[in-house]
């Protein structure tokens, strides 16, 4: 029962979102609002400003390099987190039975 109610709910959410999507700018291409002066600047000036012919690389590690830094830190954090969970702890700790609070 609850399963079906949830399904209907999600379907309604889907219909709602589809309805909204159909009112969004659909003219994929040069007229779409996202293709604005910033995009033109990236395409036309990035070679002169960064020297890389791959525009994505030039944005990734020059214009928005701070995001990339943040992203490497996400990786760093995740590995610290995984190790802190999974790597066996010191020997005396291991012999203790897991205690409950």
């Amino acid at each position: 029962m609850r399963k079906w109610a949830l399904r209907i709910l999600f379907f309604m959410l889907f219909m709602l979102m589809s309805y909204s999507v159909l009112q969004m700018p659909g003219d994929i291409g040069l007229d779409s609002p996202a293709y604005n002066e910033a995009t033109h600047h990236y395409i036309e000036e990035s070679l002169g400003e960064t020297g890389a012919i791959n525009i994505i690389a030039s944005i990734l590690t020059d214009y928005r390099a701070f995001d990339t830094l943040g992203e490497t830190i996400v990786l760093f954090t995740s590995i610290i987190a995984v190790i802190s969970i999974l790597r066996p702890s010191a020997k005396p700790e291991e012999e203790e039975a897991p205690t409950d609070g």
Partner: protein
Amino acid sequence: MIEFLQMLYDYVNYLGAVALFIIGLHTVVTHSNLIKRIMGINIMGTAVFYFFIAIGNVTGGLPPILTDTPGEYINPLPSVLILTGIVVVVSITVYSLSLVIRIYETYGTIDQDEIAKINERENADD
């Protein structure tokens, strides 16, 4: 009718992204298996990224690597945001998978409902 179908066809990328987002959300919310929920998060993530890519698309455009070929380049910014996003979602996935291992070791199951039952039983014992 034809117009409506044509419209759906034009919006296929957006609609597909929305559908995948909803499917992913449904998987996260309704399933009690922890690994399934992590997969749901991944589906949701790719759906959002797909939406971004669809925004940047230009019909008949060129990939954003400067060449001598005449033509218009696609919008490069969404791709950049997505490159960051993919790695972020992978990190989250890995972290939650490591939690799953520990949960399996301590509870002997990876089913949310059973874990809740075990917890209840233990709290009742106190």
